[in-house]
């Protein structure tokens, strides 16, 4: 393997010519992620139902549903591709996958003054 050889699943970063083109690449990225779920679960030995992983992927895409700026979408696409490559190539490890689920397991944030004080937050 030569050093110049592109890594597996790497994609050349590109500027999207239009919003509809960007939308199409987002859909492709989403499809790649969802299609990769069984393999992700295998390589990372994820001890969760498959539906949870699928929902989490969906959630991460939904977070940026309202982004309209093409430049921002391009960056998000790049990050998504990067995330996909790192996950599928197992450059990420189990802990990096589980980090997506931290918020789901965390106790609710303290609301009132006294609760915040007792939790050691101000």
């Amino acid at each position: 393997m030569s050093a110049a050889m592109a890594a597996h699943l790497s994609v050349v970063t590109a500027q999207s010519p239009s919003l509809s083109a960007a939308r199409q690449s987002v859909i492709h990225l989403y499809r790649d992620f969802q299609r990769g779920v069984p393999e992700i679960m295998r390589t990372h030995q994820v001890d969760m139902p498959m539906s949870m992983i699928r929902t989490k992927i969906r959630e991460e895409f939904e977070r940026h549903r309202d982004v309209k700026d093409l430049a921002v979408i391009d960056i998000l696409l790049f990050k998504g591709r990067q995330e996909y490559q790192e996950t599928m190539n197992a450059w990420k490890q189990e802990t990096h996958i589980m980090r997506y689920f931290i918020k789901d397991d965390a106790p609710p944030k303290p609301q009132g003054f006294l609760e915040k004080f007792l939790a050691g937050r101000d």
Partner: protein
Amino acid sequence: MFRAIRPAALYRSAALYKTAPAVVARNAMALNFARTYASAGLARSDVEKRVLDILAGFNKVDANKIALKANFNADLGLDSLDTVEVVMAIEEEFSIEIPDKDADEIKSAEQAVEYISKREDAH
């Protein structure tokens, strides 16, 4: 000795699949008669029924609106990401992989049926 226990074991493994009874029966047959060749294509009515069943299994879809001609987006109210999930469920059901280019074009159950009937490796 192994030959004697084989069919029973195969039935057991086939029963483990959590799929529709029709699929289980087909798998069991395929395993038992491993040397037979693939049957000649799928019946269109069968494909239609299976595709509509997939849609019915989607909890975002209103069961009364499901129809062959219904557009996923306009009629069934699914967004682009839901559509991706539906098409992927169809892929799993028929054990095929639809390339991005073709998957983007599938926007209704009818188009899905059309595409599957063109694919010879669908089963």
